[in-house]
């Protein structure tokens, strides 16, 4: 910065300074105030002040005397007084006008700038050092670890506040004490702290151990203890970081791991985890038991789980499409070739970021349940058939009763007729012999017997008895035909069947037991054939019809009268809907939600198993359909069975979470 009065020719000075090079920026100013302001702002390496500024020069010198860039005074003429005065006022140098002025000023300026920069740099280093010291103090104070510096003899030189806090020793009391006096004995011994320090004193590396001891609060604490030699003077730094909490957390995590591992291993369900390639990465004990193999890790699940057809490849679909299944039924093939029904839930396995890792499958062996289901189904079928048989037996009993009685009677009639025939034979013989007396006698005997046995009546009634018996046997034949129709086929596979036919044959057979008290209405719609288990559907219809009949009987009581049962079928979209309505006693609202529960019954002991509707429910469910009920107490009930034409059975994935 070049300070010279206005109007004064500063050019010689500026020209001299330009010789220092282009990197030197020259800033001309014309008064002390401006000069001082700029100089104190920093960034100014040198002030060249023209003596011609007079008092302003003095003010510049005064202003920058204690701090700030050096000031070089240039004077028009050289005199010792002027120079002396300038130096006294704090000038760094004084250059007088001469032939050599440009060269001298340049050299002086350069030298002053170099010096000033050195001073400034030293200041910066000192400041940085001071900052570091402060930082060090803050760290030592704030670090959550107990620090102690020991001298070569093992006496404490200093401790940080955390040390004081952790071991309940005031910093001033720690000073000069041997470490053994400050730390609990058990802590010192647990990690051999003295030995650790001795070892650290001999080498440059850090020594680390875990030390344990009871802290001042009486709690057992764990410390990560590290010791390091600080320098050549034998001083040591001991760092004791409290890791009690960390250890507690680590133990807790380990405990949790053991806990979950325990649960998973002792789970009554099999659990498999597979990676994206379908290889098993984890299997619990139950999975090994069900799959019939050990050391499953690394095996492909395809060895047990089906991959075709697609509908059965649940685990594969979970892996590929990310769909979930819950409680789906599948069949696995064990290592020994045995097929096992299982209930399985599959879900994709994702990490915290949501990227796919594989899949988890939880499954149970269903063979026992399946067996039980078969028993229940069978028991329920027997119970319904028992009821039906009673109704059918009654219907057969009546014709049987009169046919039986008629046969006895016809045998008696036959005897009468045989006696009449004997007398007719005698008459024929007498007529052949030509003795009119004997003919007359034989004719009289015949007439007498005919009158005695009431031959006209016998002949007429014989014919009537035959007719009635024929009619009775026809009725029995019809009932048996209905029965045969009803139980015609019981395929274990699904077959395309006519639901109307199933309903009609069932209604006909149940009708035999309820025809005295019930008017049966049939409304059959046009239906496509349905892939189903026809015998199972008949069982559903039979249960609903028998229930309808019983509801009507219960309402009718001894007064008699007729009830009405209406069966109807219709196609509704992709479903076949079967309704069975009655105008019987109805179901109280509080029972409506429970009627499909197993063993729920309001019938007297021995009248129902309590499994009828629950069996209906599971049969309909097996067909992928639904069963609903509407009822008004005292007015009747309507059961609706909805069966999808697409059929069910194949598990459908459920929407993701």
């Amino acid at each position: 910065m070049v300070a010279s009065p206005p109007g004064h020719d500063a050019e010689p000075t500026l020209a001299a300074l330009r010789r220092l090079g282009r990197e030197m920026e020259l800033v001309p100013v014309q008064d002390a105030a401006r000069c001082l302001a700029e100089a104190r702002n920093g960034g100014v390496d040198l002030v060249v002040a023209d003596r011609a500024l007079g008092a302003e020069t003095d003010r510049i010198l005064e202003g920058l005397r204690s701090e700030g860039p050096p000031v070089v005074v240039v004077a028009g003429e050289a005199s010792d007084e002027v120079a002396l005065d300038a130096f006294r006022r704090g000038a760094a140098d004084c250059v007088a006008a001469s032939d050599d002025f440009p060269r001298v000023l340049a050299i002086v300026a350069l030298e002053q700038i170099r010096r000033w920069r050195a001073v400034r740099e030293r200041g910066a280093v000192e400041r940085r050092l001071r900052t570091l010291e402060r930082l060090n103090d803050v760290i030592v104070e704030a670090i959550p670890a107990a620090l102690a510096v020991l001298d070569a003899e093992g006496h404490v030189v200093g401790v940080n506040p955390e040390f004081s806090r952790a071991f309940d020793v005031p910093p001033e009391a720690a000073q000069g004490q041997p470490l053994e006096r400050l730390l609990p004995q058990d802590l010192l011994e647990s990690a051999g702290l003295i030995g650790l320090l001795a070892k650290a004193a001999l080498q440059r590396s850090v020594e680390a151990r875990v030390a344990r001891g009871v802290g001042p609060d009486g709690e057992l604490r764990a410390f990560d203890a590290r010791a390091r030699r600080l320098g050549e003077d034998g001083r040591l730094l001991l760092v004791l970081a409290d890791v009690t909490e960390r250890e507690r957390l680590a133990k807790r995590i380990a405990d949790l791991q053991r806990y979950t591992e325990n649960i998973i291993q002792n789970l009554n369900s099999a659990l498999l985890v597979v990676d994206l390639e379908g290889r098993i990465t984890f299997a619990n004990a139950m999975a090994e038991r069900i799959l019939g193999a050990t050391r499953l890790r690394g095996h492909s699940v395809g060895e047990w789980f089906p991959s075709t057809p697609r509908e059965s490849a649940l685990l594969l679909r979970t892996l590929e499409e990310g769909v979930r299944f819950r409680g789906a039924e599948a069949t696995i093939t064990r290592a020994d070739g045995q097929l096992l029904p299982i209930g399985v839930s599959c879900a994709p396995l994702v990490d915290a970021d949501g990227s796919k890792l594989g899949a988890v499958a939880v499954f149970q062996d269903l063979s026992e349940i399946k067996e039980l289901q078969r028993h229940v189904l069978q028991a329920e079928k027997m119970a319904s058939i028992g009821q039906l048989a009673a109704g059918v037996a009654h219907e057969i009993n009546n014709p049987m009763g009169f046919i039986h009685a008629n046969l006895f009677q016809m045998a008696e009639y036959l005897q009468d007729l045989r006696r009449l025939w004997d007398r007719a034979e005698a008459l024929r013989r007498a007529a052949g012999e030509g003795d009119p007396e004997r003919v007359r006698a034989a004719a009289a005997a015949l007439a007498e017997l005919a009158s005695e046995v009431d031959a006209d009546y016998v002949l007429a009634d014989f014919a009537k008895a035959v007719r009635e018996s024929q009619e009775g046997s026809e009725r029995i034949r019809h009932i048996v035909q209905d029965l045969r129709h009803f139980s015609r086929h019981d395929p274990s596979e699904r077959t395309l069947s006519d639901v109307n036919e199933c309903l009609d044959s069932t209604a006909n057979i149940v009708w035999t037991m309820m025809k005295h008290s019930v008017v049966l209405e049939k409304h059959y719609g046009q239906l496509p054939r349905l892939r189903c288990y026809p015998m199972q559907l008949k069982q559903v219809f039979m249960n609903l019809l028998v229930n309808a009949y019983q509801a009507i009987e219960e309402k009718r009581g001894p007064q008699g009268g007729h009830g009405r049962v209406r069966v109807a079928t219709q196609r509704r979209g992709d479903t076949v809907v079967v309704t069975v309505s009655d105008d019987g006693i109805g179901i109280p609202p509080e029972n409506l939600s429970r009627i499909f529960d197993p063993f729920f019954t309001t019938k007297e002991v021995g009248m129902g198993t309590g499994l009828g509707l629950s069996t209906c429910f599971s049969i309909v469910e097996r067909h992928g359909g639904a069963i609903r009920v509407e009822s008004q107490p005292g007015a009747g009930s309507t059961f609706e069975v909805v069966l999808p034409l697409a059929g069910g059975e194949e598990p459908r994935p459920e929407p993701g979470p």
Partner: protein
Amino acid sequence: MSAPSTPQPRVVLVVDDEARILSALRRTLRREGYEILTAETPAEALRILEERAVDLILSDQKMPGMSGLELLARAAERRPAAARLLITGWTEEVPQRELEALGVRALLPKPWDDGELKRTLRQALGAWRQG
């Protein structure tokens, strides 16, 4: 021949909702010398009981509207002296206690044995005569 010796024949009321059964029973009892009345419904039977002095009622158990047992109970109110017999196909439970309480003489199966039926009726009427 087992024609009745008394000039007044015994009156037997047979009740069944099945006309063919009535016809067969009438046939079976033809030579027993009874006057046989038939009813196809319990209501009709009760009407007949109002009008006629019946010596024996033979009723089917399972009938629409009213069971045979109920009919016999009502019959006992109208004709306490009449012997009461029940025919059952064994397809329904008949409580023994009620049978005894009603003084039902016998329970006959359906289908019945002709000889047994005739014997049972004779015995019931004989007992009635003594009692």
